[in-house]
C-alpha cells in the first residue's frame, strides 16, 4: 500500500537502520511529534485498553481534518503515537481510515513491540480508527 509521503520517508529511514536499539531510540525521539493529551485529561474514554502501561488518545476534527491528541507513560508507546500522528494528522477522515497498521511492521518495530496477547499498538491503532469513524 502507499503511505503519506512523510510516513514513507520515515519507513525508509527505519529500514536503513540495522541495530534494533537504534531503531527504538528513533521511535523514542518521535514521541515529540505528538500533540500532547496531558495526564489531567486522561479518562476512561481516552484509555487504550490492553496496553501494559497507561496510554490515552483523543481524536478531534478541526476544519474537517483529523487531529490526534495522545499521551503515554512509556516512551516507546508515545513514539508510536508520534508516528501515527505524522501519518494522520491533518488528513481528511476518509484518508486516515485508509491507513493499515502494517507500517509498524514495515518499519521493523512491530516485532520489537511484542505481538502480544494484547498488542498495545494494534489496540491503539484500532481505537484511533474507531474514534475517527465515530466523528464522521
Amino acid at each position, binding site marked *: 500500500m502507499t503511505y503519506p509521503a512523510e510516513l514513507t520517508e520515515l519507513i525508509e529511514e527505519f529500514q536503513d537502520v540495522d541495530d534494533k536499539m537504534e531503531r527504538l531510540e528513533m521511535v523514542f525521539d518521535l514521541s515529540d511529534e505528538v500533540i500532547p493529551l496531558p495526564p489531567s485529561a486522561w479518562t476512561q474514554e481516552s484509555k487504550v485498553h490492553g496496553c*501494559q502501561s497507561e496510554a490515552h488518545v483523543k481524536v478531534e476534527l478541526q476544519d474537517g481534518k483529523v487531529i490526534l491528541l495522545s499521551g503515554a507513560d512509556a516512551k516507546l508507546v508515545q513514539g508510536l503515537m508520534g508516528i501515527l500522528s505524522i501519518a494522520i494528522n491533518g488528513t481528511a477522515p476518509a484518508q486516515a481510515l485508509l491507513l493499515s497498521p502494517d507500517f509498524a511492521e514495515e518499519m521493523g518495530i512491530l*516485532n*520489537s*513491540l*511484542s*505481538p*502480544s*496477547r*494484547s498488542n498495545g499498538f494494534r489496540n491503539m491503532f484500532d481505537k484511533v480508527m474507531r474514534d475517527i469513524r465515530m466523528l464522521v
Partner: protein
Amino acid sequence: MALRDDFPILKREVNGYPLIYLDNAATTQKPQVVLDAMNAYYMSSNSNVHRAVHTLAGEATEGYESCRTRLKEWFNADRAVITSGTTEAINLVAHAWGRANLTAGDAIVLTEMEHHSDIVPWQMLAEERGVELRYVPVLEDFTLDMEAYAASLDGAKLVCVVHTSNVLGVRNPLEEIIELAHGNGSLVLIDAAQGVPHERIDFKHSKADFMAFSAHKMCGPTGIGALLIDGDVFETMQPFMGGGDMIETVTVNGSTFQNNEHKFEAGTPRIAEAVGWCAAFDWLSKINLPEEHNRLIKIARWVSEQLRSMGISVYGRHDEKDSAVVSFLHPKIHSEDLAHLFDSRGIAVRTGHHCAQPLLHRLGISGTVRASFYLYNTMDEAEKFVEQLKLITERFG
C-alpha cells in the same frame, strides 16, 4: 499411500507384526509436521505468553494466538476458547454458562448416545441446581428417537448432542436437531469430538451455540482442545476457573475480568500444544477430507458386512455421513480376549464401554470391540483385520 509416510509411528512393529492401528476413535496418530512444529517451538521460541515484551514471548504469543485464529477460520466461529480437551470444554459450558443461566426447574435434553463427558457434567449440575435431565432414547436402528426428542424440548434451556457417536459411528441429524431446539428457544451444544476429524463443520452456518472437540482426535497433540461459542451467547457467560491471564484487574476487594476468550483461559496456557495443533490444521488442509471420508466409510461398510456374514453382531449402520467406526461383539470369544489376540498380530482395537454406558445399556450389552479407521488406514489393513479375525475365530471360537 503417500499420506502414511507422514506418520512415523506407522513404521512400528508390534509383537513382530506391522502395526495396524484401528483405535482412531480413541486418539489419532500425529504427522511428523506436528512434532516438528512443537520441537521448533521448544527449541527456538519457548516462553510464556502473558503480556510480554521480549522477542521469545512475542513469538510464543503469536504461536498460541494463531491457533485461535486457525480455529476461527477453520470452523467459521466468532469465539474460540482453547481448553485442555472436549471434556474441559463441556465442563466449561456447565459452569460458565449453566451456573449463570439455569435455575431449578429448567431442563436439559441429552441423548442416550452421549459420551460420559457429555453426561456427567450435566448430572453434577443437575444435582447442584435442581435442573431436570431428559435423555432422548436410541432406537433399534441406532438412531435417535426424533419424535421423543421433539417432545422433550418443552422447558429445555439446552440440548446437548453428540455429533457422531464414538461407539456406533452414527452421525446425528444435527441440522434438524438444532432447528427444533432453536424453534423452542433452547441453545444447542454439539459434542463434536468424533465429528471434526471426519467432517469439516461450519459452526456459524450450523447455528449451534457451543461446539466442543479435542486436538488429539484430529492429528493434533494431547492436552488441548477447544470450545467454539456463538458471539451473543458468549456474552452471557461467567468465568469458570480463576487465575492469571483471565483478569483485567485484581484487588483484595474483588476482580474484573477480560471480555474476550482469555476470560476462560486462566493460567499459563498449552502453548506448545497450540503450535502443534496449528501444524495439524495445516496438514489436514492439504487432505481432501470428503474424498478420504468416502473411502473410509466404504472400508467400514465392507468390514461390517464381512463381520455380519461371520455371524458377528455389528452395532452401527455406516451411512454416508457416519464415521468409519465398527463396533461389534463376537458370539464366541470374549471381547477382551479378542483384543489381546488382535494385539498379538499387531492390530490395535479397543474394547470396553467406550465411555458410553447409557448407550450400551440401551443396546443391552456391556461393551463392544471397536475398530475405528482414519486417514492413514488402508483397505489392505482392513482385509488383514478381517483375515485375522477369521483365523482367530477358527482357532479360538
